[in-house]
Each structure stands twice: as structure tokens, then as C-alpha cells.
């Protein structure tokens, strides 16, 4: 029997085992879907700040300030009749702040006097509170620049300082589509490690490793069989995740990007399956492979571009992220979907690193398996 035929036999055996005990397969599908749901919650929750607004002043400037608050890129405004009603919303956890445009606001502005917005803030933490505090200057400057219905003579015709924003990309990708694309990285990362690890660890747990080691099957054929089976199962789970992404409207900018997505999926899955096989050979228990996959894989994923380019998260984290394939996989997925590279170097670097990792990981899986054969 040739090595290829032996690899095929091992692959078929793995597939049969996966059908008989589908837990790891289901887990590899469920975990990325869980992350997708949690990311959606995170994106939905972090999008806008729920704020009760009291418009006690119905004059032109009070109304203009209401429009300015609406245009401050921050607030999800809930109009209420009074500050007490706003505080009731905070107590019910339906809002985190009350902004009141007080009576006499328009009169004060028209007369050139000082007017104050009243902010009652549930300062749950500094980050959330600063989101509200930092948005108010934008609202106030917006009020002066764009929303004044009639410029009184005592106010400046325009503010002395303005700014011209120049965006790098013609379109700003939404937070959810950006986060959701990263889910494909999690799907290949965890799916690959769990499925690859289970393939070899299962042999040790069932006690069948003895027969496998005593058989004349070469190490590369064993690794190839395990990786192939993991690939077939993993690609199904990744396609489920991809299908969910497409169903919720996260799709490549152009359908021409789809072959790119498929290519990244295949190479990335190969990398993590191979590393999973190596981990399974070393650890010999699925109960040890799973914590390793979660314990190392998830933090690595989060410093590898889940929220934005890796360099923005700090130099130390970026230096670590650059060593591993996760950042490159994520960059390739972002490029395939959104058309930009969140890593310097673009396609040559990303594909070069991913292909190098693929070769190294496959070689590592064979080497670790063969080493366990001879030394242990």
C-alpha cells in the first residue's frame, strides 16, 4: 500500500470517527458562531450611547442644539419630558445620561450670554463616560458651524478655526462588518487546532496509537491523513460561518473577492490543522488540546487585528502578533472583504508569510509525530 493510499485510509477512518462522535466537530462550528453572536452584541452595544434628551427650550437655538446633538456621531437620543423622566430611564438601565437643553437657552444665545447644557451622567466607567463628554464639544461646535438658523450680529460669522477631514478610504466600513470578518479567522484558528489536535490525541486516548506506530505507515502519511480529514470537516464548519456572514449582509465589496476568501480559508486552515496535529502529538489528550487552543489562540486573535490594525494596540502586542500567522490571516480576510490591507507589506508579505507558515506547520506536524514514534 502506497503512502498516499495509507493517508487516504487514515482520512476515511477519521471521517468515520467524526461521524460517530461529533462533539469536537460541533464544537468547532459552535465556537465561531458563538463569537459571531457575541461580536454582534459587542458591536451593537458599543455603537451609540443611549441618552435621554430634555428639550425644555423650544426656541430656534434649542431646536438647533437638538439637531447638533443628533449629529455628534455618538448619541442614541431618547426624548423625554423632564430631567426626572430621564433619570428614571437611567435607573431602569435604559439610558446612561440625561442632556437637558434648559429653558431660556435660545434667549441666552440670542442675547450673547452664556448658556449651559445640563448633563447628568451615569459614569459607569471612564471609557463610557468620556464617550459622552467628548461628544459634547463636537455637538457645540456643530451648533456654531452648521445649525444656527439665524446668525445674530454679536456671534462670529464663523468659528476662527475649522478643519478639513481627508479620509484614506472612500467608504468607512461599519464596525460590525469589520469585526464579523475576523470571525473567519477564529473559525479557522480554533477549528483547525481542535480538529487537528483531536485526530492524534484521539489515537492516544483510545489506545490505538500503538497499532499506528507499529504499522509501516510513514509519519507523513499519518499527518497527511489526519490533516486531510480535519480539512474536510473544517471546511464545512468554516463554510457554515461564511454562510451566516453572507446571510447577515457581511459580504465582499465585489464578488471578485470571493476566490480570495476561499484561498485564504484553505491556506489558513492548513496552517492551524497542522499545528493542531503537532499539539495533539505532544499533549496526547483532547482535554489538554482544547484549553491550549482557547488559552493561546484567543488572546493571539485579539491582538492580531480583531479591532483595528495591530500597530494601534501598542508596539509590544504588535511585535508578538507579527510572529504568528493569525494577523496575516486576518489581514488577508479583511482585504478580501473590504479591499484594504490592515498590515504594511500588502499581498506579497501576507501571502509569503502564510505560505511559509503552511510549509513550516506541515513539516512540524510530521516531525513531532515521528519524534513521538521513535523517542516515546
Amino acid at each position, binding site marked *: 500500500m502506497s503512502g498516499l493510499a495509507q493517508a487516504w485510509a487514515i482520512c476515511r477512518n477519521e471521517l468515520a470517527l467524526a461521524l460517530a462522535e461529533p462533539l469536537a466537530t460541533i464544537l468547532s462550528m459552535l465556537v465561531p458562531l*458563538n463569537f459571531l453572536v457575541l461580536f454582534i*452584541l*459587542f458591536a*451593537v*452595544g*458599543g455603537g451609540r*450611547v443611549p441618552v435621554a434628551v430634555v428639550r425644555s427650550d423650544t426656541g430656534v437655538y434649542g431646536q438647533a*442644539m437638538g439637531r447638533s446633538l443628533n449629529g455628534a*456621531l455618538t448619541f442614541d437620543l431618547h426624548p423625554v419630558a423632564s430631567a426626572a423622566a430621564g433619570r428614571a430611564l*437611567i*435607573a431602569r*438601565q*435604559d439610558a446612561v445620561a440625561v442632556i437637558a437643553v434648559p429653558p431660556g437657552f435660545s434667549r441666552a*444665545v440670542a442675547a450673547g450670554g*452664556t*448658556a449651559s*447644557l*445640563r*448633563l*447628568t451622567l*451615569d*459614569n*459607569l*466607567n471612564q*471609557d*463610557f*463616560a468620556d464617550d459622552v*463628554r*467628548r461628544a459634547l*464639544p463636537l455637538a*457645540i*461646535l*456643530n*451648533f*456654531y458651524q452648521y445649525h444656527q438658523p439665524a446668525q445674530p450680529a454679536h456671534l462670529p460669522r*464663523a468659528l*476662527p*478655526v*475649522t*478643519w478639513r477631514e481627508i*479620509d*484614506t*478610504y472612500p467608504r*468607512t466600513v461599519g*464596525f460590525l*462588518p*469589520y*469585526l464579523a470578518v475576523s470571525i473567519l479567522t477564529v473559525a479557522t484558528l480554533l477549528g483547525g487546532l481542535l480538529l487537528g489536535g483531536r485526530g492524534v490525541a484521539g489515537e492516544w486516548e483510545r489506545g490505538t496509537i500503538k497499532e499506528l506506530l507499529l504499522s509501516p505507515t510513514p509519519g507523513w502519511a499519518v499527518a497527511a491523513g489526519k490533516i486531510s480529514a480535519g480539512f474536510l470537516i473544517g471546511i464545512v464548519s468554516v463554510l457554515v460561518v461564511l454562510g451566516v456572514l453572507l446571510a447577515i449582509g457581511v459580504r465582499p465589496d465585489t464578488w471578485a473577492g470571493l476566490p480570495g476568501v476561499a484561498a485564504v480559508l484553505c491556506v489558513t486552515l492548513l496552517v492551524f490543522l497542522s499545528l493542531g496535529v503537532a499539539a495533539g502529538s505532544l499533549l496526547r489528550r483532547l482535554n489538554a488540546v482544547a484549553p491550549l487552543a482557547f*488559552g493561546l489562540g*484567543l*488572546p493571539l486573535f*485579539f491582538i492580531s487585528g480583531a*479591532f*483595528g*490594525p495591530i*500597530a*494601534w494596540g*501598542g508596539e509590544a502586542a504588535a511585535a508578538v502578533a507579527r510572529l504568528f500567522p493569525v494577523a496575516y490571516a486576518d489581514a488577508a480576510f479583511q482585504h478580501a472583504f473590504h479591499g484594504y490591507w*490592515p498590515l*504594511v507589506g500588502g499581498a506579497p508579505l501576507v501571502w509569503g508569510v502564510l505560505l511559509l507558515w503552511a510549509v513550516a506547520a506541515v513539516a512540524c506536524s510530521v516531525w513531532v509525530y515521528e519524534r513521538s514514534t521513535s523517542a516515546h
Partner: protein
Amino acid sequence: MLRSIWAIAAKDLAVWVRSPAVLAVTVLPSLVLVLVLGLQSVAVGSMPVAVVNADAHGAAAAAMERAALSYSGFRPQVMTAPAARRAMRSLRVAAVLTIPAGFSADLAAGRQAALDWRVRNFNADTADDLRRGLPDVVMAFLRSGAAGPDPVHIGVAETDLHPRDVSLVAFEMVGVLAMLILQAGLVNAGLAAVREWQTGSVKELLLSPVPRIGVVLGKVVAGVVAADLVGGLVIAVAAAGGVIGVPGPGGALLALAAATLLAVSASALGVALAAALRVQERVIAVSINLSFYLFFLGGGIVAPAYLPAWLRGVARVIPVTYAVDALRGALLYGAAPAAGRDLAVLGAFAAAALAVGVPALRRGLAH
């Protein structure tokens, strides 16, 4: 009866302490989450921004530069224009603020001066953070008087509901604490129950003179003790590390009550899951997933107010929401105005969970 309950609880706790794998399953997901949240708070906290002052000798430009450098929402770095372009190209900065040549002269002559604001708009969240940031800088500049009399006559009178802002890490740490208690209760009580079937020791338990209710309560007590121990350890480490303050006696008591009631709910739910699933891997998988969802929906990451209305409705019917509220009040804010409501709801959840968990395991033991 009480002695039997404690004997069973002590045995389950001894097994828990001696099982590294179970200990890892209990604490690892939460530790990973702590690490992830820490990394995330760095990533979303402040972004690197290049500040280019092309009006090197202008006093107003210098004031604008100072305003940009002192803004806490950015990690600003002064650069030359070519260096800023390179930093932007190599993604080392998220934006470049350029104070153009003639900025100060324009202002002195009464002309409007315009800043250049180049934004790397990768996604709406980071881009909007940058877009919100620059007006803050401009406002600070206008208030400084460097552009003449302050033209902005609208201020903000702020009243905070808490005496000080706690850090994002501390805020999320308390959410993770709730998840850890939940997970410790669910996993430990669930595994302690399912182990009886997997090792075959269920037969000895059934043949012993201990009433079945005693067996079930023993497993719940073990789950609660494990959860409280893990929770107490996290609070001690967080307080020692300065992440949270040391709670006073009232705060500590409230935290203990909330944690214990949550642990009772989780442990009772754990034994019910064990009776239903009967396989260790399934109990672990379901427990971890369940605790993650309850953690997110119960305000672990963002306060329920930030969720859409229908999810806020879901948050109101899960115990974690009330536990997180009580724990944050006790450990972070020094006051928990809704503590009575929180403890009452948690008590009701604990009673309901016991009402489901106890008969489920009794039935399971009987079959």
C-alpha cells in the same frame, strides 16, 4: 443529614482541588477573558495620532499643538510632515493633524484658519473616535484664548452619579468575576454530579442511607463553596493589584451575598444539566457556552442600557444582570441603590433553580 451534605460537599471539593483539568476548565475561560478585555481596552482606549506643526514660529500654532498633545483621547506624537506621511503609510498612526503654515497669521488677521485632519477610516468605530476627538482639541484651543476672545458661549454643567470614574478594566473585571462565579458553580456542580455516573459510584450513593435530597444539596454546596472561593480570590487579587478598592464591611457583605446567591443558581442549574446530559464533555461545553452568553447579556461587557430594547428585555430576566449590578455597586461605586431589589431577584432565581435542579438530579439518580 447536615453532616451527610457536608461530607459529600467536602469529597467533591477535594476532587476539584486535585483535578488540574477541572480547575483549568473552571478558571481558564475567565482568565482568557480578562486578558482579552485588557488587550481590548488598550486597543480601543486611545489611538496614535501624528501632530505636524507647519507653522513653527506662530504662537497660536504652538497653542494648538499643546492642545493636541494634552488631549487624553489620543496618543499624540509630534512629527515632521514627511515622517507623518511615512507613519500614516506604515499604519503606525491612525491620523495626522496638520497645523498649516500661516495658521497663526490667518488668525491674527481675523481670517478663519483650517486644520488638515487625515483619518485612516478602517472602520466606523475607530474613525468616529478620531472624528469626535479633534473637536475636543479645537474646543480646548478656543477656550485657551490663543485665537482671541472665546467665541463659544455654550458650556456643559455636568453632574455625575458616581463620585469618581472607575477604569474600564475594573468595570469589566467585575463582570468577569460574575462570570467566573457562574462558571465555577455550573461546571463544578455539573461535573461533580456527572462524575457519579461516569465512575459508577452512583450505585454506592443510592445504596447509602443518605437521603437523595442530601446528595443533591451536597453537590450544590460544593459548587457554591468553590464559586465563592474562586470569586474571593479574584477580588483579593484585584484589590491587591489596585484594580478595585478594598470594599468596606457593608460592601464585602453585599458582594458575598450576591456572589453566593448567584452561585446557588449556577450550581443548581449545573446539577440539572448533569442529569440531562450525563457526559462530562457535554456538560463542560454547554456550561461554558451558557456562562459566556449569560455574561454578555447580563452586562458583563457593556451595561444593559447599550443593548437594543429586545435584548434589554432578555437581560432583565437573567440573574447575572442583578448580580453584576450588586457587585459593581459593592466593589466599585461604594453604593448600590438597588441592592434590595438585586438580592431579592437573585434569591428568587436561586430558589427557582433549586426547584428545578434538585428534582432533576433526584430523578436522574433514580434512573
